[in-house]
């Protein structure tokens, strides 16, 4: 299964949290969790948006470990990032996943 941020969520990603504005990383994370219930493997396409902030990426992907109770290995195994236009997003997502710690 695949999901495109630009086509299935918004072409203009917003801030970290829902309370900070529309199309937040938090909202996108909820969408990811929903999709992961139906699929073992999820391809996430980051191309085609007007640009991401670091906080959106950290909340959406690092948040899976911090807030959704997923393990790092599970996130790495089940989520495949595609970002051909700007591969630095992929690097940043991988870093966010690597640095995220589960909430105590």
């Amino acid at each position, binding site marked *: 299964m695949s999901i495109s941020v630009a086509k299935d969520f918004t072409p*203009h*990603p*917003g*801030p*970290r949290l829902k309370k*900070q*504005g529309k199309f937040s990383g938090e909202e996108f994370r909820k969408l990811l969790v929903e999709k992961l219930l139906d699929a073992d493997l999820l391809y996430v396409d980051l191309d085609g*948006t*007007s*640009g*991401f*902030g*670091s*906080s959106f990426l950290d909340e959406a992907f690092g948040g899976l470990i911090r807030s959704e109770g997923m393990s790092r290995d599970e996130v790495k195994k089940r989520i495949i990032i595609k970002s*051909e*236009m*700007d*591969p*630095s*997003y992929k*690097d*940043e997502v991988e*870093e966010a996943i690597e640095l995220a710690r589960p909430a105590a």
Partner: protein
Amino acid sequence: MKKLSSLPDQPHNLAKPSAGEPVLIPHTIVVEPSRAEVKVILPARESGLGNISTYASAIPGTIVAVAGFAIVHFLTKRRERENRVVKLYDGLREQAEKAATTAISAWMWDAGASRVELVHQTKREIQALGISATRLEKASRTVGRRGSLRDCWNARSLWPLFSKRLINVRPSLVRLRQAATHDPFEDPDRAGETEPAKNIQIALANFTHSLDEQFRRCLG
């Protein structure tokens, strides 16, 4: 010429030519005044493009001309590719400075519609920077020099000798984006701040340093 007509067309002592050998044609020449006969056997002369001796003398010159043309063509193409890399490199420096300036403005601006627009513009400009950096990395693949023995020593491997030096500024681009858009950059309730400007400038300096360094290594 009476004797001429009495001579056999194919003397018995001439072996029949095998495939690939030139055909030998006997000729009879009558020499005056003694009327002695001299027999001269000449190989049959082939004509046309199939005969390599027709143009054999021109072959070395042609090879030199074709090789010269190929070398000039190769060097011209290489020069074009290098110019493209230089152009992308110059553009990337300008884009990075512009994105950093926009980010600093967005941080300093007080809450309001103008700041929202500056926040969006910062994200757009950093993404454009990332796209240009990807183009530069791809373009550098076509001109990058191969690694040196020193690179092999540093990497403890022979791999650098077989791989090209690319211009990859992704790590420093990630740092620049993080410095520019970290929390609470997009928080609508925050006040204008000047503190992040310092970190953005440091990240920009690291980005341009990394870019310059890799450009120098790539093009030698």
